[in-house]
């Protein structure tokens, strides 16, 4: 039973991955990744990692991918004549600088990496790799339960836990700054909109970020 489930979930994971790499429309790629994530959650369950599986579904597939969907909807982006699943020839003949060589090279490199990883992971001298895993005793605080993970997080891995939360905070602030509409010095409206020199409302970042800092906008002349 678990073997069959494994194969279904494994196939789903790999199919999702292939879809992400090869689907032309980024939206479809996002959906393929969601499928991949769900398959991975099943695999986690098979490995008795209940909490991780749940977190995968809720956080990864639920939150992160939703975020992705929003951004893809906003930004869009189409890859013109990029790789399609059925177009192997065109896949190898790509566009872009050194497109063909890079696609071929990417395939080769990826293949080489795969081979090495397989050798490394499967050829290790650890005999336990061949086994089904350590003995498992079910219970309220058994291996893989939330209580188990929670205890680990708050005792052994407390520092890691706190640092991770700090990291999340920074990321949130950074995201706001990056994508937010801030008023420029000498311009109304956002960065990238024409400023006419009036309405000098400063943000703290303007104080520490002088003009001509070499932003891309300045580079293309969209902002002076």
């Amino acid at each position, binding site marked *: 039973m678990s073997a069959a489930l494994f194969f279904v979930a494994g196939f789903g994971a790999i199919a999702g*991955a292939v879809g992400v790499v090869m689907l032309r429309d980024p939206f479809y790629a996002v959906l393929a*990744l969601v499928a991949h994530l769900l398959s991975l959650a099943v695999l986690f369950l*098979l490995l008795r*990692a209940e909490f991780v599986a749940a977190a995968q579904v809720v956080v990864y597939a639920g939150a992160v991918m939703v975020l992705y969907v929003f951004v893809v909807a906003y930004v869009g982006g189409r890859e013109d004549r990029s790789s399609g699943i059925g177009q192997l020839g065109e896949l190898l003949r790509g566009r872009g600088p050194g497109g063909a060589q890079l696609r071929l090279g990417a395939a080769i490199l990826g293949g080489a*990496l795969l081979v090495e990883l397989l050798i490394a*992971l499967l050829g290790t001298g650890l005999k336990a790799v061949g086994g089904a895993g350590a003995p498992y005793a079910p219970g309220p605080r058994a291996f893989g339960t939330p209580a188990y993970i929670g205890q680990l997080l708050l005792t052994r891995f407390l520092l890691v836990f706190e640092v991770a939360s700090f990291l999340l905070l920074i990321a949130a602030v950074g995201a*706001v700054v990056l994508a937010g509409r801030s008023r420029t010095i000498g311009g109304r409206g956002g960065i990238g909109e024409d400023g006419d020199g009036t309405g000098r409302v400063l943000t703290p970042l303007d104080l520490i970020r002088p003009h001509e800092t070499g932003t891309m906008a300045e580079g293309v002349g969209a902002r002076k």
Partner: protein
Amino acid sequence: MSIAWYLAVSAIVFALGAAGVMVRRNPLVVLLCLELMLNGANLALVAFSRMWGNGDGQVFALIVMTVAACEVCIGLGLVVAIYRRRLPIDVDELRELQG
């Protein structure tokens, strides 16, 4: 199933993600392929955790998930900012940082 199978799947997913980073031109999709690689690593971590029987691998996987979330956050913010400035959403076009 022995742990080896899970490791094999993990390796395949990781390699696919690496190839995808090299191949795709839309930055959003590149980030998706990065996610693939992270997930492949996560799978390997959880598999090893099951093998050893302690929770270290799973905690690691959770933290990786956290970091991946942060990184996606910032990456998408960058993409939005690029889009706002009316620059092409194509990693091949965005190459001012050259030697």
